[in-house]
């Protein structure tokens, strides 16, 4: 209902009370005193002439009493009537307004000349323009932390407007939980009888968490303004530039990845698209500004790098036109991924990355495709020889990690894993970690779990001769889900760790941006490229602390920023360097006397690149019982302000009406009651 809302809608739960008069009426009729009378002959005659009038009066009384309860409940709920009586925008009750700005990085997304945050400021000015001297405004800006802009006790609208000039979004991620809770508390404290909270955000999933549900007390109206195009997703990713590095060794993929602001005068934020072409070349398209698209390609065949024992081949025969097989040279471990049947390209790249990262001394992988229904989901089985490898696998988003006792010959703890559940639990002193997997894979994992520890993989793929499979140093695996119930048999595990990772077959190869794995993937690429041997990663805004020894420059270290330029940092008395100029995502290097001491990456919070938008329903659920409305770009923003500002609180009128109705009730019941 656009013309009527309630300031305290929680009181509307009392609406069933309007049944109370009816109940009392019915009960009183039932419990009416019975009087023995000699003969009702004359009563009936007299009653016949009065019954209609009496019934009418009773109905009127019942209605009036019900009406009184209804009015009282409504009055308690403080109804707000909007847009009536031709009120002007400025004609509204004194209102306390909190403007909450989502200042996280994703607000820098720009689909036209202004980014989302700048559009939000314009809208905020529009809100302020409709306030008057009786209103008070508070400003909150939130990214990692919540900041109060100006006075937290309420400013005049024109004062608040001045503060808007200096606002800009940050490079940080974060949720709005604390900010919304604080907004709720702030506006509750102001004297103005009306209170409203306007939140300017891109509604990116993750910006609001469960914490807000407990923190927000009540029933104040929240209005969320999102300046994104309806239905569009914010494609802001924390990766700016990917180029091939000239000095790369042959056969080794070497990517120079810079993330976040380019620092070259361009607007922060890029919007990449990653996909594979027919030649199985990975293509990364980067939109730095509207109309500007940069493309970087990197053949997958180059993914297996130096030191890796992974070879990726594209085989068009036998496995189908688009099928790809990965082999571990010499060990003939094989990964097969079928494209064109719903296989996620992200998975493909992920496999490649996993191979790159784990192809050394830490373990090995095997994988397969799970044909489930119409879709095919790839499965990667990764062998780890140490616990750290497992941890890394988990960190990279692997779905299921099982690992047996260390040093065991063939024994692995039999572990029953609730399929489809999420959690951690202990078994024989080691954790088993299960994360959500694709919707059709539980059956596979059920078989896997049930077959542990003696896992054999039979009929890995019917098109691949079994002879191609040889026992590796750590095990042989075959998974088959074709033709009925899944099962796993054969093979032995000897003192290894096993990781099984999968994604849902739902993802189409070009739906990269919808994949929650995409950003971890790119994040992994950044880590890989930047870190090399030992990647050290930080989030934007974090302080990097390095311990350095004596240098020829007296301890001063030059930090190379991603966008060029240097920043000199002197160590503290303890010899530690504190480098806090990390707003810009990208690749950093610290050098002293021309020698690189360390390299590290700084990236945006991957949560900021969440592609999915939180729904209005979810918002309402989180903020309940506060009324929540979401206003999108082009949805009559000012009209809504007009309606809200032009409203009248009806409680006082309702109480007057209650009084009048009670008078009427008393008059009529007085006529019915005895003199």
């Amino acid at each position: 209902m656009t013309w009527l809302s309630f300031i305290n809608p929680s009181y509307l739960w009392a609406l069933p009370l309007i049944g109370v008069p009816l109940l009392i009426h019915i009960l009183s009729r039932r419990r009416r005193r019975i009087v023995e009378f000699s003969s009702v002959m004359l009563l009936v005659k007299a009653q016949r002439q009065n019954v209609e009038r009496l019934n009418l009066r009773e109905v009127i009384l019942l209605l009036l009493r019900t009406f009184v309860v209804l009015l009282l409940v409504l009055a308690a709920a403080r109804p707000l009537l909007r847009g009536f009586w031709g009120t002007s925008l400025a004609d509204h009750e004194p209102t306390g307004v909190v403007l909450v700005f989502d200042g996280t990085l994703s607000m820098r997304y720009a689909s036209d000349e202004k980014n989302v945050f700048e559009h939000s400021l314009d809208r905020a000015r529009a809100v302020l323009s409709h306030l008057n001297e009786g209103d008070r405004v508070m400003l909150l800006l939130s990214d990692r932390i919540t900041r109060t802009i100006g006075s937290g006790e309420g400013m005049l609208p024109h004062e608040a407007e001045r503060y808007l000039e200096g606002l800009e979004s940050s490079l940080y991620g974060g949720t709005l939980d604390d900010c919304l809770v604080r907004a709720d508390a702030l506006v509750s404290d102001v004297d103005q009888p009306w209170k409203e909270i306007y939140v300017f955000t891109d509604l990116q999933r993750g910006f609001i968490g469960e914490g807000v549900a407990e923190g927000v007390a009540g029933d104040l109206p929240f209005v969320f303004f999102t300046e994104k195009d309806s239905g569009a997703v914010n494609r802001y990713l924390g990766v700016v530039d990917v180029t091939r590095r000239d000095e790369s060794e042959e056969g080794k993929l070497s990517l120079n990845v810079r993330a976040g602001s380019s620092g070259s005068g361009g607007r922060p934020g890029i919007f990449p698209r990653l996909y594979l072409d027919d030649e199985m070349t990975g293509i990364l398209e980067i939109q730095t500004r509207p109309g500007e698209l940069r493309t970087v390609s990197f053949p997958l065949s180059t993914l297996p790098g130096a030191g890796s024992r992974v070879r990726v081949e594209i085989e068009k025969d036998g496995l189908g036109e688009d099928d790809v097989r990965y082999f571990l040279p010499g060990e003939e471990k094989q990964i097969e991924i079928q494209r064109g049947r719903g296989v996620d390209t992200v998975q493909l790249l992920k496999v490649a990355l996993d191979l790159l990262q784990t192809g050394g001394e830490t373990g090995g992988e095997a994988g397969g495709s799970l044909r489930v229904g119409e879709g095919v989901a790839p499965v990667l089985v990764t062998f780890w020889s140490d616990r750290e490898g497992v941890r890394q696998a988990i960190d990279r988003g692997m779905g299921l990690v099982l690992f047996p006792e260390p040093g065991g010959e063939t024994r692995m703890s039999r572990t029953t894993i609730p399929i489809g559940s999420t959690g951690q639990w202990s078994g024989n002193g080691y954790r088993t970690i299960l994360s959500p997997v694709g919707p059709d894979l539980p059956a596979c994992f059920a078989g896997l779990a049930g077959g542990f520890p003696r896992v054999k993989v039979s009929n890995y793929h019917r098109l691949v001769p079994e002879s191609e499979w040889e026992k590796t140093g750590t095990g042989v695996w075959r998974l088959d889900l074709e033709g009925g119930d899944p099962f796993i048999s054969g093979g032995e595990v000897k003192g290894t760790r096993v990781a099984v990772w999968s994604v849902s077959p739902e993802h189409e190869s070009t739906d990269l941006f919808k994949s929650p794995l995409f950003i971890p993937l790119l994040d992994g690429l950044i880590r890989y490229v930047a870190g090399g041997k030992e990647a050290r990663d930080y989030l934007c805004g974090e302080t990097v602390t390095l311990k350095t020894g004596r240098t020829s420059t007296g301890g001063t270290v030059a930090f190379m920023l991603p966008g060029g330029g240097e920043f000199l940092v002197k160590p503290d008395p303890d010899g530690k360097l504190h480098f806090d100029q990390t707003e810009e995502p990208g690749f950093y290097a610290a050098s002293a006397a021309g020698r690189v001491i360390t390299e590290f990456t700084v990236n945006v919070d991957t949560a900021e690149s969440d592609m999915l938008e939180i729904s209005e329903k979810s918002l309402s659920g989180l903020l309940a019982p506060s009324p929540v409305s979401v206003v999108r770009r082009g949805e009559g923003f000012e009209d809504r302000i007009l309606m809200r500002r032009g409203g009248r609180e009806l409680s006082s009128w309702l109480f007057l009406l209650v009084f009048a109705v009670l008078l009427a009730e008393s008059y009529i019941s007085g006529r019915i009651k005895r003199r």
Partner: protein
Amino acid sequence: MNPVKKKDSRIEFLDPEVVSRLGGLELIARLVVEGFITGLHRSPYHGFSVEFAEHRPYMTGDEVKFIDWKVWAKTDRFYVKEFEEETNLRTYIILDSSASMNYTSGGVTKFRYSVLLASALSYLMLRQRDAVGLVLFDEEVRLFIEPRAARKQLRVLLKSMADARPARRTRPIDPFRELAGRIKRRGLVIVLSDLLTDPQEVTRALLYFKHQNHEVVVFHILDPMELELDMQQEALFRDMETGETVRAVPWEIQRDYLGSLNEMIDSYRRELRSALIDYQIVTTRVPFVEALTHYLVKRARLG
């Protein structure tokens, strides 16, 4: 609405509710009647039963003992004295024992009042050597006691009335027709009833007695509440005879109710007067003596 005005302050001692609590019917009847008679300051023996009528000339065949010798001494002519009939009046007290008679708004029920009144009448009449009988009726005749003038008749009547329990509905037409057939000798019929039924039916039923040349006196016994409907609370009214219920707000329907009631009473008055039937409204708060007075007036007319 008190149709009978009080005549004497002493009569107040005979308030029905007070009298009702005194004890046995005989005692009450005696108290009522004796008090009543004391109030009248005249003896009942001076008038009613052994009444001189006239002198007429002696004719052959007349018994000599009836010759009035005093007249002969004065006039030297033979005259004989003539007297009224020696047998006293035959009175039938017809008492309504239907369930509605059990109603009371406080104090005595209509039935109890009627029984007390009938007891007093019986006592009074028997003292006058009238023969008194009793009939209890509702839808039919429940009890029929032939009139007798014997003293012991009083106890018979009182015991019968004391044992009676009001029940069933009032439908006088059949029982009255039956009674009219059974009562051959002319007499006085006293009806005590609330007459809460169709007035035309009641009138028609009473006419059966009139057609038999009986003198009829109707005491319309009503509770004050029935005459006023002065209740303070809305209630569900249940008919004591039919069990029918009516939801009513008394003060809302009072005017219409009283209108209907008065219409009914007027109808009784009009119809019964035209039939030469005495009709008297008596509420259960009216002292018995007033009702007795009404009876005496009627009795005097009968001579």
